[in-house]
């Protein structure tokens, strides 16, 4: 168990190291930076309150990502989130190609775009994504493959890329 000081330090360190990753994952899920930041704050609050113990920093990061995904899912389910009609995030400041790619990924169903985000942005392998998403490796492989096919239809490319199981 942590004492208060250690916990504060571990939360502070996690905030420094992982907050951007968590915001980006939540953004990939919710498509809105303000919501993504709110979810990320909720995750850190949970960290502070539940005081989980981790084996190592990778375990800690995986927990934070998993919790971010869960809280993003919860937010999507809430009535007020469904009922509102948010303005799409303005990404016009990105270079054209990057903007197109990002919009294409965000337009995918979330079951495809989260594995794609975890693989292409975080660099996780299929096995690692499977652990984080609590799914079978084969299922994750299928999601990635289908996601890539859909992206190929939208923006081209990817045909020469393979993901090794």
């Amino acid at each position, binding site marked *: 168990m942590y*004492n*208060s*000081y250690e916990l*504060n330090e571990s939360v502070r360190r996690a*905030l*420094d190291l992982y*907050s*951007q990753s968590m*915001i*980006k994952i939540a*953004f*990939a899920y919710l498509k809105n*930076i*303000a919501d*993504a*930041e*709110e979810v*990320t*704050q909720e995750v*850190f*609050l949970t960290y*502070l309150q539940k005081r989980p113990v981790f084996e190592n920093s990778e375990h800690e990061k995986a927990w934070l990502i998993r919790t971010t995904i869960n809280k993003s899912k919860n937010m999507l389910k*809430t*009535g*007020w989130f469904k009922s*509102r009609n948010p303005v799409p995030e303005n*990404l016009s*400041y*990105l*270079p054209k*190609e*990057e*903007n197109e*790619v*990002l919009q*294409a*990924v965000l337009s995918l169903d979330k079951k495809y775009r989260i594995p*794609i*985000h975890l693989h*292409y*942005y975080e660099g996780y392998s299929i096995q690692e994504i499977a652990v984080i998403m609590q799914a079978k490796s084969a299922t994750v492989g299928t999601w990635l493959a289908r996601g890539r096919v859909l*992206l190929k239809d939208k*923006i*081209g*490319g*990817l045909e020469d*890329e393979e993901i090794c199981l």
Partner: protein
Amino acid sequence: MKKSVYKSAMSRVKTSEDFKEATYQKFMLELEKTTHTTTMNEERVKMEKTSKRKLTGLTVGLAAAAILAVGVISINQNQSNPASTPTNQGQTAEATAKPPIMGKVAVNIDGVISEVSADGKSFKVGDLWVEVTDQTKLGSSEPTAEKPSEELLQKEFKVGNIVSGYTSQDVSTGKVTADVIYNNMAPQADSGEKPATTAKVQVNIDGVISEVSADGKSFKVNDVWVTVTPDTIMGIDGPTAAEPSDELLQKEFKVGNVVSGFTTEDLSTGKVNATRIYNNMIPQK
């Protein structure tokens, strides 16, 4: 698509520059909220059991209420504007102009201790290291103030304790010596004599407005939608309460405003009517 394009695009997506500060601020508010709720619940039970007991600590209690009110402001301002001078932190110009009428005490050290030095003479609140010396007064020296109990003003500074106090030094330096420490209490102190809490206001709506409904009658704070009805009481009443200024209690609810208030309804439903709104103010930049 190359891997690098997506990674590069996602890396460039802009996020709030003050995300970390906002997160720490949220932690503070949550801790504060938890502490207030616990303290108030304990106090309510105690008061029911001991209805004969008079409010002997009313004076100190009023000071504590003032600390709470000022604290709500200073928590928000200290974090967002560390370069402010002590005199303008936690107080509006109006509050500064008439402290005796409002019974407020100057507070610019306020929050939860996150670190304590090895010698126990210094502690960290937010980003500020505060040193307690022999010159530091412990407790309020106001003429009507009662001597605070050991629970409210513990001798030892510990991580997690809630402290409030005042320094005449520049808090923007990051390290100051405390002139006065009003409170130093454990976050969930057990029962006992706690006169200071008897006059505290109950706050369970507290934070920054993230959304406002189209009709302007409802707003979202944290995860709760709060509706202001004709029955909602605005401001703080009581024999010593000053009339709230337009600055502290604006008529219009706007995104980014800092609100505090109280509802008797169940917050877990996600949508409540406000019983009372104490503050609705623009955060100082």
